[in-house]
């Protein structure tokens, strides 16, 4: 091993910054999954009957399904009976009325994470619906948003307060039976965010949720549903962090987005779940189903994701382009280091006329990790003049990691235009030496080169997120370069 490699490996072995654990008593269900557990979750949440039926339908179907094995990831079989499906911080009488009533220990957790939950939030213009394990503890700005008719609340509340919207939209993009993890999530999801933007309203601030898995051995199954009605706009930020633990934790979320006529949804994720240690011990299994429906004409959905964490990522934020002239975008940076595995990408399903989609995927692999892009572009028979542009670039750091690209293209309309470009490169000795000869240290040089590589994606992020993402890249990307 040469000096440079050693130096780089030292940089790589940085401690996971968000690896602390909050000591709060929690109400948890004992591990295990059966119909009673599903009923109990529904009961704890005080859900109406239709919701319980919905969950049970999902659960019964889940029992008939098999774990998907097509992804390019390897892990020991998950024992779903060893997982606890509900964990909530212990309630004080009626639950917090304001931040003063929120457990200070909990607030400190958010503070360490840098979540702007209090006054800082107002200054930053961020409304946070914070999900701590499975229950939303605080929901800021709700009133201010309500003035414009915007609904932003925990989905468990929406089930009570807006059952008509839940009945209409929940599962309308990702049906209960969609896939193994989506079915599991539909059966046992405990909380998540709900957003409804009324017709003609432009949401005045970035909406943000921070997810955090805290208790050991709890799966976190959030469910997010965002509906943008005609001529509306919303930008939604999702940030994730999990504490450090030896065992693997399961995270199987479902996110559904619905964009009506001329509506636009921008959904940005910075995912920094605990990736496990350098030998692959611990870390989050991140098996997530994210899908958007561009249901209306000229609607638009953009997914932007920076994925640096998790032991395993299995995630394909997709767009179904139903409305004519609708637009789907996917911008992704996926970083794997040490023993991390990622199989991520997108699906763009073109159904309407003149629909267009753009896919920009940047995969960075370091250490002994494996990073796969998997994408599907499907042009339906009625999708006249559909267009897609796909660019997949992989950057390898060192010689023990792997990058894979699995693009699938299905075209059933002859007027379609589909372009695919792919590249694989390495951070070269020449680039590093050039930067060092200009006085930069290795750490800054690597960070700069990698940020340059990801620029097309980073610039799609809202400003405050972009800075966080760049820092994260700096922390997790500096890997062994050979």
């Amino acid at each position, binding site marked *: 091993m040469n000096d440079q490699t050693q130096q780089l490996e030292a940089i790589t072995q940085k401690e996971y910054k968000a690896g602390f654990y909050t000591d709060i008593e929690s109400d948890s269900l004992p591990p295990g999954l059966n119909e009673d557990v599903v009923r109990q979750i529904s009961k704890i949440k005080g859900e109406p009957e239709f919701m319980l039926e919905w969950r049970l339908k999902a659960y019964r179907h889940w029992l008939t399904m098999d774990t998907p094995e097509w992804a390019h990831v390897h892990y020991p079989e998950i024992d779903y009976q060893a997982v606890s499906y509900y964990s909530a911080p212990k309630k004080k009488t009626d639950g917090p009325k304001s931040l003063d009533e929120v457990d200070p220990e909990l607030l400190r957790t958010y503070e360490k994470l840098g979540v702007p939950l209090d006054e800082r939030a107002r200054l930053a213009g961020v409304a946070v619906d914070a999900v701590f394990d499975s229950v939303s503890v605080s929901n800021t700005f709700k009133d201010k948003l309500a003035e414009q008719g915007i609904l932003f609340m925990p989905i468990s509340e929406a089930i009570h307060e807006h059952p008509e919207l839940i009945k209409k939209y929940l599962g309308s993009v990702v049906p209960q039976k969609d896939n193994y993890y989506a079915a599991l999530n539909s059966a046992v999801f405990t909380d998540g965010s709900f957003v409804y933007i009324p017709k003609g309203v432009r949401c005045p601030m970035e909406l943000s949720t921070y997810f955090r898995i805290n208790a050991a051995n709890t799966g976190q199954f959030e469910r997010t549903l965002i509906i943008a009605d005609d001529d509306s706009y919303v930008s939604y930020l999702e940030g994730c962090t999990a504490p450090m633990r030896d065992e693997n934790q399961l995270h199987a979320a479902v996110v559904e987005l619905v964009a009506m006529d001329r509506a636009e949804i921008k959904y940005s994720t910075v995912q920094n779940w605990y990736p496990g240690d350098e030998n692959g011990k611990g870390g989050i299994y991140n098996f997530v189903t994210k899908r958007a429906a561009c249901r209306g004409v000229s609607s638009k959905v953009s997914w932007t994701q920076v994925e640096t964490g998790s032991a395993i990522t299995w995630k394909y934020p997709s767009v179904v382009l139903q409305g004519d002239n609708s637009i789907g975008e996917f911008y992704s940076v996926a970083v794997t280091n040490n023993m991390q595995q990622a199989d991520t990408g997108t699906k763009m399903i073109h159904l309407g006329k003149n629909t267009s989609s753009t896919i920009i995927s940047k995969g960075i692999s370091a250490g002994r990790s494996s990073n796969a892009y998997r994408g599907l572009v499907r042009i339906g028979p009625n999708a006249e003049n559909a267009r897609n542009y796909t660019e997949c670039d992989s950057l390898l750091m060192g010689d023990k990691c792997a990058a894979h690209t699995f693009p699938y293209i299905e075209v059933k309309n002859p007027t379609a235009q589909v372009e695919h470009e792919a590249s694989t490169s390495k951070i070269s000795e020449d680039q590093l030496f050039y930067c060092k000869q200009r*006085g930069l240290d290795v750490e*800054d040089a690597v960070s700069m080169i990698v940020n*340059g590589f990801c620029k097309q994606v980073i610039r799609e992020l809202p400003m405050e997120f972009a800075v966080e993402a760049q820092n994260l890249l700096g922390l997790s990307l500096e890997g062994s370069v050979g």
Partner: protein
Amino acid sequence: MKMLEIKNLHAKIDGKEILRGINLTVNAGEVHAIMGPNGAGKSTLSNVLTGREGYEITQGEVIYKGENLLELEPEERARRGVFLAFQYPVEIPGVSNIYLLKAALNAVRKHQGLEELDAIDFLTLVRSKMQLVKMDEQFLHRSVNEGFSGGEKKRNEILQMALLEPELAILDETDSGLDIDALRTVSEGVNALRNSDRSIVMITHYQRLLDYIVPDYVHVLSEGRIVKSGDKELAKELEKSGYSWVHDAPEPEGQPA
């Protein structure tokens, strides 16, 4: 004042000895040209002086401003004022030229105990330097060297030199790949940077660069040794008779003052 002293420098790459006892002294304010045929060790010399990996120094020493240069990391050498204008400037996609320039300048300033320049002061400074090499401002916002022509890349190197104000600048085949206009622009840029505190070592295969940047001394490098030293007239001799005659020439006894 002695800027650089190379004493009996031997270096290997992949077990093969490329530098076989180089001796050279460069004083502050002097411009030295090192000429030689392909394979003489010219690029190895510039790589060893700037600390590129992969070379094994088997003998000798290099003293830069009284310090053992070979003990320093490449970035430490750079921050102390050793600059290499690359023969093949490297492309860095997605990183804007201005970003690299600013990071480089601030790295040097930090080493010198100076404050980092803010965006406005930096822009003012870099604009004034760009005039030296007649570069358009759009180059600041393009990715480092990406899609630059050969001439643009070399001008970009001289821009960096102008900005970083090194004490020892090594120009590695700065004339290669340049048409006559670009060569003139680049040379004018370098000449404007000549002063009594700055030393320049020009590595070149051809004499024509020396018509534009006139050196104080010319050395002929052959098979890893300096086999002949003289003034600018030596370059002209070389141009006439080629390199073949120097091969058998004995190593000169002394060094130019």
